[in-house]
Every structure is written in C-alpha cells, then in structure tokens.
C-alpha cells in the first residue's frame, strides 16, 4: 500500500459574510494558501478533488467555472459530495488518488459561501434536502400543525435535536454540559484566526443566557452559516519525504454509511433506526480507520480529536462513538476539563464546526486542523502537549454519512 501524507494546508478566513470576494476568488485563495504552505507549484499538482453543496450557492458544478482559479485546467478534477461530510470525502478522494499510484500530488478543496443565498443561513439548501418528501406529505394530507412541529425540529437542524435528547436520556448528560461545550468551542475559536464565531472568554453561563430554540438547544448552541474555503495538498511518500520537513501521514480512513435518519426515507416512508444517537456507521468507520492505523486503544493512543459537531451534543456523542471515552461518559470528561485545549484529550481546539460552518469546508478543516496540530503549526490554539496521533470525524446526510480519518506524525 502506498503511504500518503498531508504536505500543505490552506484556508481562508471564515466569516458570516465574505462579500469582498466572489466564490472563485475565495476558493482560489484557499488552494493557493495550501500550495504555498506545501511549497508546491501549481504545475506540479497531478489531480484535484473538490466539493461543496451546490444548491446552497445556486451554482451547479461550480468547479467547471472555477477550474482555472484553482489551477485545475488541464488536470483531472473529481467532484465528490456527501452533504456535511463532503470536506472529508474530498480528502478521502485525494488520498485514494495518491494511494492508487495514479498520481503523486493531489489537492483536495471544499468550500461554501452561504451569504450568496438570499435566505438566512442554510435555509435554501436544507429545505431542498427534504422538499420532495414534505411536498408528498402535504399532498397526502399532512396538517399544517404537523408541519409546524417538524419545523420546530427543523429550526434546530433536524434530527440533531432528537439525537441530543436520546444521548442525554441514556447518559445523564444535561443541558449545562451543552453550554460548556459551546462555550469551550467559542473560546477556542477566538484563538483560531480562521474561525467564525470567536468569543474570547466565553463562559457556559454566557451560553445559558441565550434564547431556547427547542429543548435542549439554545441559540448559543447552534453553529453559524459561514463563508469560507479550505484545501489540503496530499502527496505520496516519495514526494512527501523529499519536499516536506514534517509530513503528516494519513494512516487510516473509512466512511461507512448508515440508514438515513431524518425520521423518514424517500417519499416519507419510515426508517429502521430507533435511536438517532446510535450512529453505528461512525463506530464502524472508526474501527476500520484505527485498524488501518494500527491503533489498538484509541483512549490511550489518540492525542487529539477534531470532531464534526454543528451542535455541542455531537462533540460528546461522536467522541464516544469513535471510542475516545467510555459509553455515556464523555460529559464527565468534559466536566473534568479533559477535552480542553490543555486537557488529556483535547477536542475541537479549533472551535470546530460549532464555531465555523462553511459546509463543504467544515469536514476538511477537521482533517486540516489535526495536521496543523501534529506539525505544531496551529499557532495560538496549538495544544501544549506533543501530538502524535489525531483523529478527525465528519458527519453528513441525514445523520447517515460519516468519515473518520486518523493522522500521525510517523508511519
């Protein structure tokens, strides 16, 4: 098997509105930053993988328009999209491009420019996911009040709200713990110059004062809709050893799909998952990725995690699902400060998706942040301890897509 390394990281400043640039310029910025970081000339790149949520920005196949902006004209370009996990899926795509032996240097990039939509946040895109189903339900005589009750959940981004309740019910986690996670993420984001919701010194009490959206989610728990792009340069072992003083190796990866779980399947049928926080696909992905990476006990061997958590509950759920904490005990670790920037198992020291969510970029940033931490290049939010093994997750679809990526400083 060919080894593959991250040799360059690039991102743009993520914020609510990047009206200073157009989409092509924004994505170009991220790619150029990554190439510069890698010390790779655009001519040297062999292949590109790209992805975003095309309905969100209203441009279909945007890479066709912006191919030249990322240096992809005359090169293979593969567009990979899987919803929220898109960013990780494009990195996996670039990994396989290199691991296959077909290419030596590949660039993965993901982006979103929410402010290009007239609707607030990600309304357009999220509506379009299930619009066909909703319309079918309306045509079958669903009541407005029922749609309203679905909207309540929809306002808190769908099933994540239920998922939080399942988790809280069986673990004993309380709403205060969600406040703690959200406050930590915003504090961490304040140290990350590329992050969106930056709130220096944010406390759980600050979050607790924000308005309740639907129990257990408060306004302060919910991720923003950001504009931004990020990119990684991946290379084969030969190239990485020659070109990069500290390559970060992608040691394990997997992306197992679960059953769609937004209470309905296509057309409004039911689904066979009773507990939305089960997320079997995440656990299976982690098992496979750890096995590839030779990690036997993630609780001991993993030094840092970047978890995909648009909602604070998901940081806790996924940390358990990928074996970083015992079942139902992540919130206790949180209480003990273990997930803090100087903790035993720092989680989302970048602020995570909870603080910055430019969807196509979000899952890519998780992998990118792991790479930065391993290289010791995370600047203000660099964790004090040495990072040898880090794990990044992604979550997408209707809670049915996951991607787990394990990165290490050595082979």
């Amino acid at each position: 098997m060919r080894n593959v390394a991250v040799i360059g990281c690039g991102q743009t400043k993520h914020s609510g509105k990047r009206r200073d640039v157009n989409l092509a310029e924004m994505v170009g910025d991220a790619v150029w930053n990554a190439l510069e970081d890698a010390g790779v000339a655009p001519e040297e790149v062999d292949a590109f993988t790209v992805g975003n949520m095309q309905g969100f920005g209203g441009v279909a196949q945007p890479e066709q328009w912006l191919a030249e902006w990322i240096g992809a004209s005359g090169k293979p370009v593969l567009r990979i999209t899987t919803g929220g996990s898109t960013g990780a899926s494009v990195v996996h795509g670039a990994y396989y491009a290199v691991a296959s032996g077909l290419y030596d240097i590949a660039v993965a990039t993901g982006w979103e420019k929410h402010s290009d939509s007239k609707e607030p946040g990600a309304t357009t895109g999220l509506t379009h996911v299930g619009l066909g189903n909703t319309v079918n339900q309306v045509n079958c005589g669903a009541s407005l009040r029922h749609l309203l009750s679905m909207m309540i959940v929809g306002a808190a981004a769908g099933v994540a709200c239920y998922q939080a309740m399942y988790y809280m019910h069986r673990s004993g986690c309380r709403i205060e713990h969600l406040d703690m996670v959200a406050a930590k993420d915003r504090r961490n984001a304040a140290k990350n110059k590329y992050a969106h919701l930056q709130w220096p010194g944010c406390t759980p009490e600050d979050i607790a004062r924000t308005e309740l959206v639907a129990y257990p989610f408060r306004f302060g728990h919910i991720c923003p809709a950001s504009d931004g792009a990020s990119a990684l340069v991946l290379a084969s072992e030969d190239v990485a050893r020659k070109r990069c003083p500290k390559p970060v190796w992608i040691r394990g990866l997997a992306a197992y799909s679960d059953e769609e779980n937004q209470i309905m399947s296509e057309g409004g049928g039911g689904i066979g998952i009773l507990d939305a926080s089960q997320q079997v696909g995440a656990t299976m992905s982690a098992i496979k990725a750890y096995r590839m990476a030779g990690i036997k006990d993630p609780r001991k061997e993993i030094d840092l995690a970047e978890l995909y958590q648009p909602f604070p509950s998901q940081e806790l759920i996924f940390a358990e699902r990928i074996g970083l904490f015992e079942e139902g005990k992540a919130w206790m670790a949180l209480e003990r400060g273990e997930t803090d920037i100087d903790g035993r198992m720092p989680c989302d020291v970048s602020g995570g998706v909870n603080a910055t969510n430019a969807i196509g970029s979000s899952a890519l940033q998780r992998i990118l942040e792991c790479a930065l931490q391993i290289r010791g290049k995370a600047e203000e939010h660099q964790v004090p301890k040495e990072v040898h093994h880090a794990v990044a997750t992604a979550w997408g679809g209707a809670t049915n897509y996951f991607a787990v990526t394990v990165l290490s400083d050595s082979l």
Partner: protein
Amino acid sequence: MSSPSKIVLTRAPLPVVAGFRWSVGEMMERFIKALAERRILGVRCPQCGYVYVPPRWRCGRCYAPPGEENIAELSGKGTLLSYTAAAVEIDGAGNFKELSSPKTLGAIKLEGAGSTIFMPLGEVKPGDLKVGMAVEVVWREETKGELADIKYFKPAKGSAEILSPKAPRRR
C-alpha cells in the same frame, strides 16, 4: 428487470423559489462599474500576456497574479468566432419556449482579448452572419454600470477579418 411501476408525481402546490445574490469581487466590480462610462475592461497577464475579459486577478494559464496595473481597456470591437440563432429559450421552470423570431447570439473575441465572450447580436439577420465578421458593441441609451449596459453586438463596418482555419496556439 422486475418491478412494480406505480408512481405518483409530486408537484409543490406553492411556489418555492430560492434567490441568490452573488458577490462579484473587486476586479469584476471594476468591470461592471466601468460599463457606465462605456468602457470594457480586461486584464493582461504580466507573465504570459493573455488578456482576460472580464478581468481577474489570477491567470488561469500561468498562474501569475495580475494586479490593478495590468487592467487594460478594450475597444469594443471584435471578431465573431461563432454564432447561433436561437429558436427557443428555456424558462425558469425548465420548459422550452418557442421564440416568435430567432434570437441571434454570438461568441466574440474582442480586439486584443484572449477570452471569448458570449453576447446577444443585433441589427443583423441570421442568414447574414458569418464566422470571422467584424462586430462592435452597442450600448443601451443610458448606461448605469450594470451588465445590461451592453445591449448587444452588431456587425461593424469595414472589412471582416477572416479567421484563419488553423487552430490557435495552445499553451
């Protein structure tokens, strides 16, 4: 393949329209604003010399970053590289609408430009169109700094430059 073939067609009873407002970036903003003064701007790559219309700050061919100093004004005259007469147009619902008379459209290379721009043509019958003919911009009466300031292109007086049958040089 075996399969039941019962389906229902699901159409939304209410119009759901998603609106977008794409920010244009600084170079494109200059291009659009200059239209008010009846100027068409491009940018010349300082490294390879290719001229982009509209202007942009990254050369897609040699990747050099052109700056403000490389902005160039084009004459508004050019060559028709190709043309078509549209018998239909597609509406927002995806239906083909028959046009009462054909709309002429052109692929135009402005004098000195590298890029091809796609523009409506006017003051010409479809049968009179020729690849290689000279065309020039027609502005709308009152230009406001909008893309619509370019009303269309029409055949220009003078001799038509005949396009060489040889393919242009590639990088």
